[in-house]
């Protein structure tokens, strides 16, 4: 799976989790700046990414995933 595909899938997940329309994502977008973000939806966001890409993040790493770029890099290293 290349980076563009990861971005596309991630955009769909953002729309689903934060209940909004699908919009393209930029790598420097901070997760907590997304519309509808709160600590609860953040948990759902991480869990949905794990399920969708069939990957598991390490507990220690979850706190470091602050931007879309961080997420894409972490996903890319696993799929």
């Amino acid at each position: 799976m290349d980076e563009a595909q990861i971005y596309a899938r991630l955009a769909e997940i953002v729309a689903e989790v934060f209940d909004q329309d699908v919009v393209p994502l930029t790598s420097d977008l901070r997760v907590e700046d997304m519309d509808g973000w709160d600590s609860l939806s953040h948990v759902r966001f991480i869990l949905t990414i794990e399920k969708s890409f069939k990957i598991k993040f390490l507990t220690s790493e979850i706190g470091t995933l602050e931007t879309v770029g961080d997420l894409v890099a972490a996903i890319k290293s696993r799929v």
Partner: protein
Amino acid sequence: MNPLYVELQWLPRAPKDFSDRLKALGGEGRSLGRELKALASYALDLNQLTRVAKVLKKARTEGESLDPLSPFRLAILGGSTIDLVVPALTASATRYGISLEIIQPSFDQVAQEALTPDSKVNRSKPDAVLIALDYRALPLKLSFGDTEASNATVRGAIAFLRSIQTGIKTNSGSLCIFQTFAPPVESLFGSLDRGLKGSLRNLIDEVNRELAQLVVGSGDALLDVAALAETVGLADWHNPQLWNLAKLSFSDELIPLYSDHVARTVAAIRGKSRKALILDLDNTVWGGVIGDDGLEGIQIAQGDARGEAHLAVQRLALDLRQRGIVLAVSSKNTDEIARVPFERHPEMLLKMDHFAVFQANWNDKATNIQAIAEELSLGLDALVLLDDNPVERGLVRQLLPEVAVPELPEEPAFYARTLAAAGYFEAVTFASEDLQRAEFYQTNAKRAQLLNQVDGVDAYLSSLDMTISFRPFDNIGKTRIVQLINKSNQYNLTTRRYTEPEVAEAQNNPEVFTLQVRLSDVFGDNGMISVVICRRGAADEWEIDTWLMSCRVLGRKVENAVLDHIVEHARAAGIRKLVGIYRPTDRNKLVADHYAKLRFAKTDEDELGASRWELWIEDAQPTAVPMKVISEGFRSLTRDCSEADAQQRAS
């Protein structure tokens, strides 16, 4: 994880255009409540449930009508984070026609909330309070092998739960929903944990048992989370990483399942559980199509893998009926043909008189189901339709959305499980307490009787309440007869294999005496368990060509009953001698002494161990067999025969 449960596979899959449909909800002249219920009736994941809940919450805030959903206020006391679960609960309740309002106190204030009269929960006077505790919230002290300390720990935990119950009752008068506790996966001693007093598993087992006793019959409700967790698997239920990260006491993937279980419990409290099960027939109640395959062709026998799957459906339907669920039939069939298996197939568990309504015709099912609802004076929302045909399911869902129609997997072996998993008939109390009491006494009396009786093998056998039934070979039994003849190895005297035409020949030849034997007992129907073929040897003798029996019924004097029956017919047919043959194989040592035990005399034995035995009919004494004997379908009844003989002699 098992997809049936995790993915709620009894519900139709979420539509591809879920988002669009969500956005298009409500509007002038439409019922938002009804549309939300329809959307929630798909199998939704956590994100989708959360989005449905958001629409619901917005509508409530804006004072929009949610009719026809019935409002229910549920307070939740939890020791761990349930914030993630709350929206899923609201959305799942919609599925059951309930608009759920959730009252949530701050984290970890369980005892305070229950015991303080003016706490948030008590002040809000909810309809019910869900006590959603995890084992980690209980005061459980390990005390290996120390019975006294262990009992004190269990008492302490129950006292804690009881104080919550009393607090809620006194301060808000609300009903409590208690959860049993899912034990952790990690064992300490290994298997020993289960039996070792004071181990965590042992303590949790005991707390669960006592809690269940405390709740059932108290007017409160029980949500058996321990059973749910065991059903999906404890290792999948508990996710230590999620606990550490978010204090979520079970896996996020199971939130939709858990929420559906909470919702069905709330629905049961509101009296919204379903009351009747409507069964389709072809490929649901039996395998095959009665109109095409005929009575001999449908699959419904014990010992036939496909048939047993459909027997399981029948068994579940019967058990539900015993519980008080009304049964009905809706089938596209010609009425008289559809009735035939119920009236004439010996292995059918369901009979005509189990059904309140029997509809076999060629109308569409929606029309028929509407008629059934009217005939039963039940609302459509009290009905469940079990149908293997996805087309019929879709039609009924479309035209009568109030009727519950579970999706079914391709494999019929999972039909019964899927129906049970859907939880349509969830109950929080057992209907009539008087009935319950009467049954309780009756059952205890019966059990005592049973115990008294079991003082000898014969007495035990009688307590099994066996019924043995004999028929000559016929078309209904043929498939199973051929199967037994070609499959039985151990309890098989001659191990002669016959093809279906050969069996048919034996069936139709008046010179050949045949028996198919069935046995039922208190545990259920064992189906066909023995087959016998006798051929005329010399003028007045029958040679037992084939005698085989299922090993499942060994040691029950079935062989004695079979011999008695052969003798009875032989006598009636003017036979004077039975000849038995034992042909040894490497599998049938079990029956080397079969004829000796039945008091045949050995007349011959060759160097390979094959032996020949005989029994003179006039010497044969019937055995007292501990079972009820039914004999039917024989060309000429024994008595008629002997009377005819007697008349002949007289004239």
